[in-house]
């Protein structure tokens, strides 16, 4: 479940904030854009971490069956998947961005020795945004590449693990005074998590809090007077909850409810809007054969006063 688009929007908003610090334009509209910038700056990386964690949790939930082999199996219970995500995010504030994001993901999930679950995923996303200022509009677009590795293990109902990720972005933003900012952030994330999982027949449940540390090195360049870089460190607490039920051999249903809280962010982003919000939505899976399955979900951010974000995900999974 990703709100990749939300994060990309925030990244670009961060760009405006930073650029305004370096060379603040004398433009009331641009000032307003700067003031409402940098909302929920951890979203992109947060959602990639969340997906990696959900991959390993699902892998552990579905692989409850024992096998009569020595434990030292390096590569078993494998699956590969591909996924497409569409995100629509609207900053309700004056001058806020309306964004559409499209992202593709490919991933590999497997169990290794001692039944440790591993998820490795690569993402590529594109985003296009526009501000909704009367008489003005700024167009933003960008690409983002990401790689995330997540490992986890369960001991009966107790589940623990960690996620690590790297992202590289290339964003271009045109401001009202025809300035062009190029932002190329490098982001590193680490997120340990400890939680609980329960599986009984067709029913499974997991509740996993995680704490994510993000370090962003923002290299930006502009047509303005200067170019520079900046560092942005953030910390986010996210509590991931999922319920799944197999209705029949082919169909499974579930619900996602994640609570997110931005606990630490860079001080000059004082116009941060949403510091905590809820992401909820249903999901559906369809099993064509024991090896092939398709899935889809829709989530919406609730209790988010600033950003109205919804996201649709569809994917295909193959076990081998």
């Amino acid at each position, binding site marked *: 479940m990703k709100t990749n688009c939300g994060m990309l929007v925030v990244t670009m908003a961060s760009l405006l904030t930073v650029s305004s610090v370096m060379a603040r334009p004398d433009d009331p509209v641009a000032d307003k854009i700067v003031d409402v910038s940098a909302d929920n700056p951890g979203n992109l990386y947060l959602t990639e971490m969340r997906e990696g964690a959900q991959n390993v949790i699902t892998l552990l939930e579905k692989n409850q*069956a*024992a*096998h009569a*082999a*020595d434990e030292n199996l390096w590569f078993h219970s494998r699956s590969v998947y591909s996924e497409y995500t569409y995100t629509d995010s609207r900053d309700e504030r004056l001058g806020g961005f309306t964004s559409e994001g499209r992202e593709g993901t490919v991933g590999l999930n497997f169990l290794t020795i001692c039944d440790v679950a591993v998820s490795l995923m690569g993402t590529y996303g594109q985003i296009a945004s526009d501000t909704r200022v009367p008489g003005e509009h700024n167009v933003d677009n960008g690409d983002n590449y990401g790689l995330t590795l997540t490992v986890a293990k369960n001991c009966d109902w107790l589940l623990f693990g960690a996620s690590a990720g790297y992202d590289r972005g290339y964003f271009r933003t045109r401001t009202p005074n025809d300035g062009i900012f190029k932002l190329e952030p490098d982001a590193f994330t680490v997120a340990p998590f400890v939680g609980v999982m329960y599986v009984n*027949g067709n029913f499974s449940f997991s509740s996993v809090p995680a704490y994510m540390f993000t370090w962003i090195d923002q290299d930006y360049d502009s047509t303005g007077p200067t170019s520079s870089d900046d560092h942005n460190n953030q910390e986010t607490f996210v509590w991931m909850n999922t319920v799944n039920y*197999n209705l029949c*051999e082919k169909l499974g249903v579930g619900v996602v409810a994640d609570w997110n809280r931005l606990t630490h962010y860079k001080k000059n982003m004082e116009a941060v809007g949403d510091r905590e919000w809820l992401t909820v939505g249903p999901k559906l899976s369809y099993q064509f*054969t024991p090896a092939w399955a398709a899935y889809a979900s829709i989530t919406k951010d609730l209790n988010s006063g600033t950003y109205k974000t919804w996201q649709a995900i569809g994917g295909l999974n193959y076990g081998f």
Partner: protein
Amino acid sequence: MLRTIGRARALHAPPAEASLLASALLGCGGSGGPALPVRASLLALLAIAFATGLTHAATSTPPPRIQFVAAISIDYASGKPLRGWENTCRIVQASLSEWQGAPMTQLVVRNPAPAGLRQLLRQLPGPETGTFQVIYLAARHTPEGAWKFTQALDGTASWDDLLQHPPPAHAGRLVILDVCHAGVVVDQPVWQHNLAPAATLLASARDELTYEFDFSNCQPIDLSARYPAATAWLRRNLPQDWDGRLSNLGLAWAIAFQQTLQPPQSLRDWQVFFGCCENEAGRLRKMLGTKYASTVSQSPPGPR
């Protein structure tokens, strides 16, 4: 009831006669005459069964005596316990008891230590205790062919080690090896010469893992819906709090057992039954794919 009567008569009368009489009375095929009303048919069948029993009492052949021996390592210090294999041991016992129709000599050892397993295998009885000796073995098993014991300090032991002192020979020794990489024993001289089974049912090929199935989960396939008769029989013969787990070979055995009306009377019959287990496991493998289901086979290969 009819199926039970049919089976009882099959034990004490030539099968052809039993089926001819049943079809004649019930009009369910065969070369018999017109069918009688149901109640009259049942009474007639019971009367004939009683009369036939009296007539053949002096000459009926008792079922072959079966001795059951099992060694299963279940409760490992790390990793998941092999509950599915424990349940398979129970249903193999139950099926043999049903075929035997009388109390059966049996010995089940759970979580043996290396010395205990060596002793069990060394002291397997000879043919005086039963026409057939069915041995069920289940544990974690390495690709090189070693039994892994539940206690970490005990480690593993190869079949060369476990069978270094061969048991008395038994022409009716049948071994069910329900482990991963089971096929590796086929090429081991100590297995063929020291244990010398007349037939071995192997739960997996030498390079395969074998998993347990979960009847309480309808994915990846709904076993309860696809095999209702086998499921009902399993529920009758397993504890009330059965968690739904059964090994891959155990499921193939349960399905094959439902299809086998005559208990095996000879080594060839056992090979045919093992062949039935092979076929059912093959169907499971086609349905589930190689990720979930292993190749069940017998050694030496059974009759075609």
